[in-house]
């Protein structure tokens, strides 16, 4: 670069410095997609804490950046997101989010009425049905599994599994998972009303017993042991979830609980969201697969909702203490939105009926259930 370069070549170099010539039509289409995501996140409040970072990451992915995502070579450092994304590639961020989720979750309603675990299990059928559909329309089994898990309505679990089985689909799967979680109040009610009678929706459930600290602590430990013994590949997710919950319920580690609920989860969320978004390049996102995944995601949510409700109705056949089938839909997780939907639909039928706490049982059971399914897929595909 010493003096011998001519004026012309310098100007050329200057033009080459800019990256306007590197803009592709895919990028420009993606800008429109990103604008829609921003609109949904900011003005419609679709899970803004994750969709904003994802969409901003996608914006960076669809600009001709330098030094942001490049691999390190020789003495040169890699780009910023080469390093931050390692948190996803090494599967560190989702378990850390689960640590915070555990510190924020009260399993009391589930412990008081453990039957509702079956509702959380039933809702996982949506995952498998979607897996079948995705296989049928041409996705590989691994990809189909990662797509199916969208029906589990757990963002971190979806990202965890997609990174492991189908990293090339990470972005559309994450976007679908978080978008549909935000859409739960619109997606679920039609299914719920179609599958229940007026009388069923009016069922009042008896109030939940109190659960002591010791029982909650035993629950944390017991779930850890049972799940890991039966599905050891779910260890990272369930282990961190229950560590967070144990700290929370111990009542003697407040400093750590607050750190897990706030500092850790917030910082990791920024990194996780942008890392997911930055995989959302035009080439990876603008293709038929993405549309298929988005369609399959809706199907997954619908089937999961239906299965939860049908399981509740099935259980009522065998049980004296009737379950209001509206809480079955909460088994998809999407905590606590799905439980609120149950509450709202219940009050629509009977304004004096309070289903919220009853719905929290299947709701948090769905989190455990989806983590189990993820572990099962990982084990099946031999990862």
């Amino acid at each position, binding site marked *: 670069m010493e003096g011998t370069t001519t004026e012309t070549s310098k100007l050329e170099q200057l033009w080459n410095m800019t990256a306007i010539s590197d803009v592709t039509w895919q990028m420009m289409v993606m800008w429109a997609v990103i604008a829609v995501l921003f609109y949904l996140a900011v003005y419609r409040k679709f899970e803004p804490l994750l969709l904003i970072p994802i969409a901003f990451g996608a914006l960076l992915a669809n600009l001709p950046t330098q030094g942001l995502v490049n691999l390190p070579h020789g003495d040169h450092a890699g780009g910023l997101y080469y390093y931050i994304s390692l948190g996803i590639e090494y599967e560190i961020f989702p378990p850390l989010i689960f640590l915070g989720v555990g510190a924020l979750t009260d399993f009391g309603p*589930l*412990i*008081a009425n*453990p*039957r509702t*675990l*079956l509702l*959380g*299990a039933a809702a*996982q*059928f949506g995952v*498998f*049905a979607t*897996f*079948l559909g995705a*296989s*049928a329309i041409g996705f590989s*089994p691994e990809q*189909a599994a990662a797509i199916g898990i969208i029906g589990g309505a757990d963002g971190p679990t979806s990202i965890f599994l997609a990174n492991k089985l189908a990293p090339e689909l990470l972005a559309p799967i994450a976007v679908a998972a978080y978008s549909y979680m935000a859409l739960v109040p619109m997606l679920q009610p039609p299914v719920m009303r179609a599958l229940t009678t007026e009388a069923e929706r009016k069922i009042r459930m008896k109030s939940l*017993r109190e659960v*002591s600290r*010791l*029982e909650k602590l*035993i*629950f944390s430990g*017991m*779930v850890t042991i*049972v*799940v890991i013994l*039966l*599905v050891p590949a779910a260890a990272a997710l369930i282990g961190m979830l229950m560590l967070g919950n144990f700290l929370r319920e111990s*009542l*003697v*580690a*407040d*400093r750590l609980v607050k750190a897990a609920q706030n500092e850790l989860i917030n910082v990791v969320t920024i990194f996780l969201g942008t890392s997911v978004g930055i995989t959302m390049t035009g080439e990876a996102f603008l293709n038929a697969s993405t549309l298929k995944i988005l369609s399959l995601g809706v199907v997954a949510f619908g089937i999961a909702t239906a299965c939860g409700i049908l399981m509740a109705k099935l259980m009522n056949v065998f049980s004296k203490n009737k379950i209001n089938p509206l809480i079955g839909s909460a088994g998809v997780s999407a905590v606590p939105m799905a439980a609120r939907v149950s509450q709202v639909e219940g009050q629509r039928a009977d304004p004096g009926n309070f289903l919220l706490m009853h719905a929290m049982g299947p709701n948090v*059971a769905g989190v*455990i*259930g989806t983590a*189990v*399914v993820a572990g*099962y*897929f990982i084990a*099946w595909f031999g990862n």
Partner: protein
Amino acid sequence: MFENLELIGTGFAVVMTVLASIWGTCALVGAIFIRATRKATEPVAELAKVPPKPQVASGVPPHHMAAIAAAVEEFLGAGYRVTRVAAPSHQVSEWPTEGRKETFSSRRIRTDWGPTRPTLGGETPNILRGQQK
């Protein structure tokens, strides 16, 4: 396709098995706790015929709540309602650093307003003690 059905069949079975196992264990543990609670409360039920001595209510007493609500209404007008009166959930642990904080936080001061904690003797302490270079 057969492969997939097999995957689904076993998979759903696994999920049901795992969550049913948790249900079973949970119900078992719960039964023990419920029985323990019942035993603990039964003698109390017998004693309940004797009029219980008025207890110190845990929580903010209702008349305090009313007083607080009235004060707030006085100040901010009728449009405001008190929806929550809460104690901080902080629980001091025995961890060394937590103790250090408790013991020594008085050293970090804002020199122009007031003491960060009162002295044992009760007099207003010289908050600039040791900070005036």
